[in-house]
């Protein structure tokens, strides 16, 4: 078990390193001269050169990568070109709404997708199954901002029960926080549910064909006990795997959803940074999201043993 965990952890190191190289290259290749920007309009060529060497911009790619990488490991992601503030603290400030939106929409997705996938697989070909799979294709096809605007129009404009946009931190109380979170979390969750529902159905169909399902029925277990106690646990590995993979889609969705609902999160920070060509911020955000994605998938790999005792060896 310990050896398995260690092997998986060691295997993610080269991936993280590659991500770091790619993300660093993006800044390296970025147009414009940060030294010139920092020096201001009136600076002389000597001044710019001095700033450049003080920033280490005259060094080789490798030297600069090592320097940057060392900073990253210490939690230093550089400074915003726009505000001059450390990227790390800019991100830290914006983290709460983004984590809240991610967790809540994942919750919504699971609450929709798992029951839907299980029931669809239980009665393949039924109207429920067809409906669930129709929903899945629709979920792949509707961009998150489209669903968001439809929901806003419906539940905030035509029937004004929820706020159109904005964010209230958890500190202001759970009520206002949730009222502002319902629409974005629902929009993002529903679309994310499509992929998870489709995978749940496929995995359940495979499991429900197995002999041990018949054994469970022969024992006299009720349908729900057979589906959940016996089948779903066996289908868990493909399902948690797709949850990990869908996290990439969720991140893209977060960036868009925060824009639509004007939520001051990391996604909104990214969009502002794009508009301002604030490359260090873009770079920091991409690195953060990518590392989170890789680590989440590592955790999911490590969780397989919880679902299947045969993997614990």
């Amino acid at each position, binding site marked *: 078990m310990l050896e398995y965990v260690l092997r998986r952890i060691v295997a993610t190191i080269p991936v993280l390193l590659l991500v770091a190289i790619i993300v660093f290259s993006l800044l390296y290749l970025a147009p414009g001269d940060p030294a010139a920007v920092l020096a201001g309009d009136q600076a002389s060529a000597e001044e710019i050169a001095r700033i450049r060497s003080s920033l280490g911009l005259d060094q080789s790619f490798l030297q600069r990568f090592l320097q940057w990488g060392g900073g990253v490991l210490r939690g230093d992601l550089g400074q915003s070109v726009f505000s001059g503030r450390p990227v790390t603290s800019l991100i830290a400030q914006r983290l709460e709404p983004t984590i809240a939106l991610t967790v809540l929409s994942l919750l919504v997705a699971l609450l929709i997708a798992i029951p839907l996938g299980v029931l669809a697989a239980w009665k393949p070909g039924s109207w429920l199954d067809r409906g669930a799979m129709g929903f899945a294709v629709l979920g792949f096809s509707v961009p998150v901002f489209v669903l968001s605007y439809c929901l806003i129009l419906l539940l905030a404009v035509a029937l004004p029960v929820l706020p159109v946009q904005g964010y209230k931190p958890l500190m202001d109380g759970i009520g206002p926080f949730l009222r502002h979170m319902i629409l974005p979390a629902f929009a993002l969750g529903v679309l994310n549910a499509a992929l998870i529902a489709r995978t749940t159905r496929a995995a359940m169909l495979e499991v429900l064909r*197995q*002999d*041990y399902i*018949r*054994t*469970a*029925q*022969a*024992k*006299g*277990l*009720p*349908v729900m*006990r057979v589906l959940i*106690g*016996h089948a779903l*646990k*066996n289908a868990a590995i493909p399902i948690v795997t797709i949850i990990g993979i869908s996290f990439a889609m969720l991140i893209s969705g977060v960036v868009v959803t925060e824009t639509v609902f004007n939520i001051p999160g990391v996604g909104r920070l990214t969009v502002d940074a794009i508009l301002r060509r604030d490359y260090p911020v873009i770079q920091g955000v991409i690195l953060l999201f990518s590392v989170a994605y890789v680590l989440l998938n590592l955790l999911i790999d490590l969780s397989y043993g919880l*679902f*299947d*005792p*045969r993997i614990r060896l």
Partner: protein
Amino acid sequence: MSARQPLLVIDHLAVEFRGRDGTTRAVDDVSLTLHAGEILALVGESGSGKSVTSLAALRLIPDPPGKIVAGTIRLDGIDLASLDDRALRRVRGKDLAMIFQDPMSSLNPVLTIGQQIGEAIRLHEGGSDEAVRARIIEVLELVRIPQADMRIDQYPHQLSGGMRQRVMIAMALSCGPRVLIADEPTTALDVTIQAQILALLRDLRERLGMAILLITHDLGVVAENADRVIVLYGGRKVEEGPVDALIRNPRHPYTRGLLGSMPHLDSAISDDAHARLVEIPGAVPHNAGSLPGCGFAARCPLADDHCRTNRPPLTAVGADRLSACWKHDQLAGGAA
């Protein structure tokens, strides 16, 4: 036949499966009666309808594509078709338990032995966690699993094939069923383990007074273990009788074929318990049940035009014996 009250009675059962190319009748007009303490064997090649019959008894035919289209199944006089799902679930695993062919695929790989046996006990009998655990260990010991208190927390993949089948049996026995259906319980196991498992089943029958419906394709297993035999072919019953008489003197050419004993029938098969059955030329026709004549005619050495156009009825051919063959007279008295 004795005047004892029969436990399980299947009357004129018919099961159909809908497929891409039309409907197939997997079981056609099969009746059987099982008494307490009796071992009744259902014998036939694959496709003969023996497994479908046993699944139908528990109403476990997957629907769709399968469907019981005719017949009744009565357990202790109660028609199982009349029960709603909830009442039916109370019968399954409690009065009527089943063990399956492949103990590896029939046990859930992600649940421990104890969880799998325990859930049936909890469902049908209830009781505290300690009482359930004690009962699980008791049934594991009943099927002679050593170190039951350790095995209870293991997963199926940690056990050998024979051990897994013992677990299946323990699970089936856990709620004290009166009828045990054993669908090819030893096919997936090697020979010495086979003998042990069958001896265990016989012993449990003696001690618990269970009735056993033993489904097998192996007449050697039948000869050693069953009291009575029903031979199925193409979904129909072709012969029935007490095991000794039927094996000594089969009254249907198919049974003879299964025994592979046309030339020297009298060399009693019990001498060689695992006598290899000689392959009967050809295979069970897909549509045997829908042919106008005898389903076996195409493979039968005795068949004539009459056999091919007229379906032979089940006829009494001696004490407690039935045969569905126009030529059963020719087969009377041993070698033809």
